[in-house]
């Protein structure tokens, strides 16, 4: 795949999925604590979302950051707009703003989540740009 094709694919993912999450790993097997917490917030709200693992090719992350202007992963898009990374998504979730944005009920049983677990650091899974 060329870089242009990757960028087109990313743009198409954003355009075609109302709630689109770019993350490290998958919602079932997140490869990073920040991605895990972001997916967990969406799961707690019970919304349908599409998720793309950016790890398989470093160019996915390069093209995504070029397209969004946002340097880190995860990145959540809703209605084609960048909502933010994990800090913003978790803040909005805890304030009930994410539920409002997505048009769903805030789960009542929700209690503040613990801080992210220390990120596991097997060297092979790191996805550095340099």
């Amino acid at each position, binding site marked *: 795949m060329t870089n242009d094709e990757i960028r087109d694919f990313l743009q198409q993912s954003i355009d075609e999925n109302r709630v689109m999450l770019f993350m490290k790993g998958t919602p079932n097997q997140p490869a990073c604590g920040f991605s895990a917490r972001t997916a967990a917030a969406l799961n707690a709200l019970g919304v349908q979302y599409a998720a793309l693992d950016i790890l398989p090719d470093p160019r996915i*992350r390069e093209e995504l*950051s070029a397209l969004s202007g946002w340097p*880190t992963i995860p990145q959540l898009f809703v209605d084609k707009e960048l909502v*933010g990374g994990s800090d*913003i998504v978790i803040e909005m979730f805890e304030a009930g703003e994410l539920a409002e944005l997505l048009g769903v009920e805030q789960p009542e049983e929700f209690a503040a989540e613990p801080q992210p677990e220390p990120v596991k*650091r097997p060297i092979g899974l*790191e996805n*550095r740009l340099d």
Partner: protein
Amino acid sequence: MPTPTELQERIEAALPGAEVSVDDLTGGGDHFRAEIVSDRFQGLSRIQQHKLVYDVFGAEIGGPIHALSIKTSTPGATQ
């Protein structure tokens, strides 16, 4: 390897008057948490606030600074 103090000083230099605290989350010198209180954030969306901080470090984010967790607020704001 960047230190929390270095990150703190660079953010303070970019956002004069800001109250900044930076922690090294893992002790490894590449996963950081920054809390910043600045009146520069007034009227900006969360995305814009965080971008102001990311912009201090440019391409170092994702490189030497593997992860930078950010919490922004304005003076006097609760939460």
